[in-house]
């Protein structure tokens, strides 16, 4: 990945390492996410994509390495400081991770009410606006997550991710488990919503169509290292054997899929 001036970088990761016992998952990841851009990290199942974003989010403690958000080192930060930094983030989880016990509107407004102390009435108005932004009617707000289809749950998760207008949004496998039409709808919503809030986006996926739709740039992770980085448009002719095998979905090549996932 070509080095960029630190001031242009929203997220800068250097030498990130994480192991579970003897199993090394991240083995010195270097990653730059430029401000206002959308970076998509591709890689097979179990290659450490989710562990990487959990380390950046502070949900996992890395064994070594540095993570800077807006030039501020976040590894080893106190819990209070970490909460301040977390306000910059929004996240769409792979399974949407909606709270079963709360209605849809309260899921969307959760960060505003619980995290920022906004009153419920005002938060509900914002939640309904965000639901509308992802193509859902106000009456959906009164339903519970279990009453929604997978695609609708993803839309609600997206509305929740953008509700507080975060500076950085993470997307964890945003189209996994969706039919091609709904996957395309989600891809388009991601592009629209990220543009609308002017956020920096970091997505992890193994859906190549999703990469082409939502990414400005792309990187590939394999065996705990970034093995290729470049513009999203170059991914089909990268000249990198790992990327070529992954993009073309070939069984033969340098990539050996791990048995265990993390």
């Amino acid at each position, binding site marked *: 990945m070509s080095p960029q001036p630190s001031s242009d970088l929203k997220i800068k990761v250097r030498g990130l390492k994480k192991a579970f016992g003897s199993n090394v998952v991240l083995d010195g990841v270097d990653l730059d996410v430029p401000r206002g851009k959308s970076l998509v990290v591709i890689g097979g199942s179990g290659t450490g994509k989710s562990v990487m974003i*959990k380390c950046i*989010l*502070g*949900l996992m403690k890395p064994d070594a390495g540095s993570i800077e958000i807006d030039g501020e080192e976040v590894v080893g930060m106190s*819990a209070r400081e970490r*909460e301040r930094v*977390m*306000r910059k*983030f*929004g*996240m769409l*989880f*792979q*399974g949407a*991770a*909606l*709270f*079963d016990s709360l209605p849809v509107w309260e899921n969307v407004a*959760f*960060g505003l009410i*619980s*995290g*920022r102390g906004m009153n419920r009435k005002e938060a509900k108005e914002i939640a309904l606006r965000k639901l509308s932004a992802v193509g859902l009617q106000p009456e959906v707000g009164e339903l519970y997550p279990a009453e929604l289809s997978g695609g609708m749950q993803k839309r609600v998760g997206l509305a*929740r991710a953008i509700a*507080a207008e975060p500076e950085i949004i*993470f997307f964890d496998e945003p189209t996994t488990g969706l039919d091609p039409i709904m996957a395309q709808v989600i891809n388009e919503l991601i592009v629209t919503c990220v543009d609308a809030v002017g956020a920096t986006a970091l997505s992890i996926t193994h859906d190549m169509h999703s990469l082409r739709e939502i990414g400005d740039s792309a990187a590939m992770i394999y065996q705990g290292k970034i093995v290729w980085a470049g513009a999203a448009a170059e991914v089909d002719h990268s000249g990198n054997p790992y990327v070529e095998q992954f993009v073309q979905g070939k069984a033969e090549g340098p990539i050996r899929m791990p048995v265990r996932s993390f």
Partner: protein
Amino acid sequence: MTAILQPIGRTFLNGLAAMGRLALFSLLAVRHCVTPPFYPRLILRQMIEIGYYSLPYVGMTAVFTGMVLVLQSYTGFKVGAESAMPTILLISLTRELGPVLGALIVAGRVGASMAAEIGTMRVTEQIDALSTLSTNPYKYLIAPRIWAGITMLPLLVAVADIIGVLGGYFVSVHKLGFNEGNFINNIAQDATFKDIFSGLVKAGVFGFTISLMGCYHGFNSKGGAQGVGKATTNAVATSMILILILDYFLTELFFAR
């Protein structure tokens, strides 16, 4: 020789590590219980869940325990049973049977439910989602349950004590033919603050233990449905064992000469 010692050593070290994890979790949980922000709506919801919805189970247990206690004691010593019965009933229920049986019932009902709910939230990434929404999971999930456990168990046990004595009274007066006035007088004279207070303190400690174990095992569950099932079983089993162990030490603290 090494082959024999290795698994023993590994088990011992794993046990120590588990105790360390539990101690750290407990410290964090207690710290988050007493530092803002607090979530009164969630505390109230958990109080209703633990207190109100457990009442029928604890009440049924108490009434039949009181009734059986009187019958068993009567068959044990018929001479002087009428004068001794109220004291036996009161001391047994308030000091021991009320708090312990009440806590065991709540451990089975509420501890399992807590571990299953929090465990499901863990494996479906809902706990991670809380963190990304600037909400501390300890304050949002753990602290309300611990507050509810500490406050509701003593209330449940107080009700259980009353219902249990009423059950004993019913059998004493209406089945065994004891004098009603003597029974009530003896109960009123024999009731001591220490008996009742010790039982309520025990209940508070047991309530804390049940909530802590439910939350701990749920919070650390992994591996999908099987992991949640295991967490639920562990939460109930460890709560019950700890209740019995703590009961001994609390009894010694209050009554050992």
